[in-house]
């Protein structure tokens, strides 16, 4: 084997969403030759699904806003579990990252005096989200994409080729991070989806920006790409994951028809005046305001309604509580038998705004319901329910440099990185996270690569062979001769080589995994169910090793899914184990058997590490599993940041000994 195409780059970015592209732009502008690898076509990343906006305290609409207020909101939203330094950097740098987009051609909606307009969103004290209608993510991805193209045009002028310094390898998948014998990053092993051929990009710095894990759940707003690739790659390379128990269920996903169940209904619907009602017509959110938020939210419908017009003298309606609170409330209403006909609740704008305004402010929601559900949202309420949306957990990184812990040369940014959002992410903080930490990752990756110029780490051939063999397993499931791969025309030979046991259908395993995670490690968690989930995951892990595929390597989705299963099973185990361990309810982690937030858990992070430190996946033992947990106490919050909060508020979150300090 090992005769694969090898190329030398300085920085390799895995993933071409907001964080990946922003990292690539920064790395290239710092002089690093940069390659971007993405599973889809360039410009199709999951970032396009983001609707509401980019949170940045520019203060264009309400001049009272500044980074300190944004920091406070972010910490509150994450129930103080956030890596405070990340939250600080994020709040400080987000405005610059947004303004920079304008110089690259982005066109945000405007205020009356020509500045970037900002809108209200759950958990944000002031109107803060820079937006373009309800397609902000598309604008972001397109702007970054076009900036990449403009850098390539510069390179073409200078060097004669578009791709000499910055290249996008689209429709390629990375299966392993390669390291040298000292444990430093040496590059990535990848395959091209079209041809099925393997290739290696050798680079001393790799930025992981692969997004989330939602495809492990049945009802999700995430696309097929969200198979936790980056989480698994980092884990297998030896980098720990943090906070994996915190999975955000967006409160409003479509619930009907079944084929679109989970597709997102943007939070802007509520930010712009939409209200939630149960089957009895009641605005039930008023019954679900938790104590920590009591002073911040309206107590009557009248006050909530006045807030849209006069936010300075009224408190916001509880529909705009952080997402975890709203999702739990909806879940509770449905369970209590006050749900809508298809098992959700009603989200209504039709009685709140004129039809013409709805069509102008929420064009893609109007379109989405009209086209997919045959519902006219200007005339009738939508039916919505919680949907798996975002994972707060991810690669444990250094706050300032985005460097993954324990693996020199590995960086992570965006959803795949953990810590920034604590136990629950505020809407709009995701896009700004991508930009702020994407840039930082690209910057430090480029510096790291430059520091190793002349002495670049090299991966040995054995790693390549192992990676190739692993990737080819599905073609000869349980049979011998794993590295003889069927290229087009050789498929039948491979089928004959299989052993007696029939191979597993990867689609079937995937469906069982999704059902398991949805039912047993979903929005409300119980100890016994999670233990059951771990057993089921172990069973699926064994079966997944026998997942077999038909046909040849050329653009074969069955094969691609079989390979993605490894990643989904790994991250699912992380989620289940960490969720079982954390015996409290906080943000995106709700335990029915431990319903209260426990301040003793506040400074505790759960790190997931591979049980087999060599990164091999031989361990398929159901009990031991592939993941082990490490408890870690987080460094105390810097005093000047703590001083931004009132004492009375801190009491609600911090453990007593933390308060003393």
């Amino acid at each position, binding site marked *: 084997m090992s005769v694969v195409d090898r190329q030398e780059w300085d920085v390799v970015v895995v993933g071409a969403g907001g964080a990946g592209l922003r990292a690539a732009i920064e790395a290239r502008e710092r002089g690093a030759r940069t390659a971007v690898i993405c599973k889809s076509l*360039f410009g199709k990343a999951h970032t396009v699904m983001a609707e509401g906006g980019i949170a940045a305290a520019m203060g264009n609409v309400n001049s009272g806003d500044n980074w300190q207020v944004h920091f406070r909101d972010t910490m509150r939203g994450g129930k103080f579990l956030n890596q405070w330094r990340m939250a600080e950097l994020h709040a400080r740098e987000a405005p610059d990252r947004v303004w920079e987009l304008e110089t690259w051609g982005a066109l945000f909606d405007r205020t009356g005096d020509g500045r970037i307009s900002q809108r209200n969103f759950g958990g944000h004290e002031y109107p803060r989200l820079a937006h373009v209608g309800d397609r902000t993510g598309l604008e972001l991805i397109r702007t970054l994409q076009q900036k990449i193209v403009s850098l390539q045009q510069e390179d073409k002028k200078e060097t004669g080729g*578009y*791709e000499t310094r910055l290249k996008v390898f*689209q429709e*390629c998948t990375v299966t392993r991070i390669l390291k040298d014998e000292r444990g430093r990053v040496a590059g990535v092993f990848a395959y*091209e*989806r079209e041809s099925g051929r393997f290739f290696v990009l050798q680079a001393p710095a790799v930025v992981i920006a692969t997004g989330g894990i939602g495809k492990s759940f049945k009802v999700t707003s995430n696309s097929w790409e969200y198979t936790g690739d980056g989480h698994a790659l980092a884990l297998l390379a030896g980098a720990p994951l943090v906070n994996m128990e915190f999975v955000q269920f967006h409160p409003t996903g479509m619930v009907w028809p079944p084929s679109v169940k989970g597709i997102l209904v943007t939070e802007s619907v509520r930010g712009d005046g939409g209200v939630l009602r149960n089957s009895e017509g009641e605005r039930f959110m008023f019954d679900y305001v938790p104590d920590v938020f009591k002073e911040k939210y309206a107590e009557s419908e009248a006050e909530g309604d006045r807030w849209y017009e006069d936010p300075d003298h009224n408190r916001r309606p509880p529909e705009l509580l952080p997402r975890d609170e709203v999702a739990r409330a909806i879940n509770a209403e449905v369970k209590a038998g006050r749900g809508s006909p298809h098992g959700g609740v009603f989200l209504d704008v039709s009685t709140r705004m004129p039809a013409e305004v709805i069509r102008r402010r929420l064009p893609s929601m109007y379109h989405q319901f009209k086209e997919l559900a045959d519902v006219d949202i200007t005339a009738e309420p939508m039916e919505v329910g919680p949907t798996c949306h975002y994972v707060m957990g991810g690669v444990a990184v250094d706050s300032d440099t985005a460097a993954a812990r324990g693996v020199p040369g590995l960086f992570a940014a965006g959803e795949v990185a953990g810590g920034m959002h604590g136990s629950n992410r505020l809407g709009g903080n995701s896009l700004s996270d991508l930009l702020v930490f994407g840039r930082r990752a690209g910057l430090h990756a480029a510096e790291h690569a430059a520091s190793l110029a002349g002495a670049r780490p090299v991966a040995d051939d054995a790693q390549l062979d192992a990676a190739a063999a692993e990737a080819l397993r599905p073609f000869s499931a349980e049979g011998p001769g794993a590295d003889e791969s069927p290229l087009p025309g050789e498929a039948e030979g491979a089928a004959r080589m299989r052993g007696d046991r029939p191979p597993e259908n990867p689609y079937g395993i995937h469906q069982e995994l999704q059902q398991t995670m949805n039912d047993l490690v979903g929005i409300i968690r119980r100890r016994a169910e999670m233990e059951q989930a771990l057993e089921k995951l172990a069973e699926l892990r064994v079966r997944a090793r026998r997942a077999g595929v038909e046909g040849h390597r050329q653009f074969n989705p069955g094969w691609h899914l079989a390979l993605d299963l490894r990643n989904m099973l790994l991250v699912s185990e992380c989620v289940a184990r960490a969720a079982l361990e954390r015996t409290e309810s906080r943000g995106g982690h709700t335990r029915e058997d431990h319903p209260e937030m426990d301040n003793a858990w506040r400074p505790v992070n759960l790190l997931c590490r591979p049980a087999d430190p060599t990164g091999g996946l031989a361990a398929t033992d159901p009990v031991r599993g592939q993941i082990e947990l490490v408890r870690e106490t987080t460094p105390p919050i810097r005093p000047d940041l703590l001083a931004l909060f009132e004492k009375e508020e801190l009491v609600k979150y911090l453990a007593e000994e933390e308060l003393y300090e």
Partner: protein
Amino acid sequence: MTTGTEEPPATEPRPRGGVRGSTRAAIAARHLRTDRWWLAPAGTAAGLLAFVVYSTWRAFADTHYYAAPYVSPFYSPCLAERCRPMHAGPNGDLFGSWWGISPAIIILIFPLGFRLTCYYYRKAYYRGFWASPPACAVAEPHATYTGETRFPLILQNLHRYFFYAALLVAAVLTYDTVLAFRDEHYGWGHMGLGSLVFLANIALIWAYTLSCHSCRHIVGGKLRHFSKHPVRYRAWRFVGRLNARHMQLAWASLVSVALADFYVYLLASGVFDDPRFF
């Protein structure tokens, strides 16, 4: 590389052909549409053809184009010596006696040119007559295609001049419409069925002319900053609303101008008398 982004070698010969070319998915059918896609181009072609036949007959007829107080829009303004004198009407002997054929030909060049280069009619006849393309995703029968890059079709870029001319013609037809509020003895303040026909026609002519894409460009579309030109911005928005109906207006005004002419023909040839209201 899937959907490769590398530049192809410059020497690689460009393959020719269309949906049945060697690199495309091997499907023998020129199209797989199951709807009645041919209906629209066929209808368009039939409608345009009918108008061409009618207008050719009427333009060359050189007769029955005036029945006081109405003058056929095909013959207005009438710019040769042989024109019938029309009391206070759109006569203007620009061409003198040497013009030997129907004077309609002189003036019809302009509305004809306007409609021929109109962005809507171009679509209509490229699809209906040229089958270029006959309908969306239906392969066209031509071996080569250069669009509007060469003579003569590059002249389509002159649309705006015909628009300017069409404005003048519309002004004259407006004048004719005013004249239509006389009786057959040129007394003012009268109205007949013909006056209504003329009124409807001129309204549609103006709506069609102002909804023109060139007009939309000239009144405001060419600006970069609408915020600095609020009046032109409002004009642009108004024209934009009309422009959204350009196709409907194109057909409606085509029919109305033919009807107005035919009405005059019926009166002038004595088929019936104009019903007068007052």
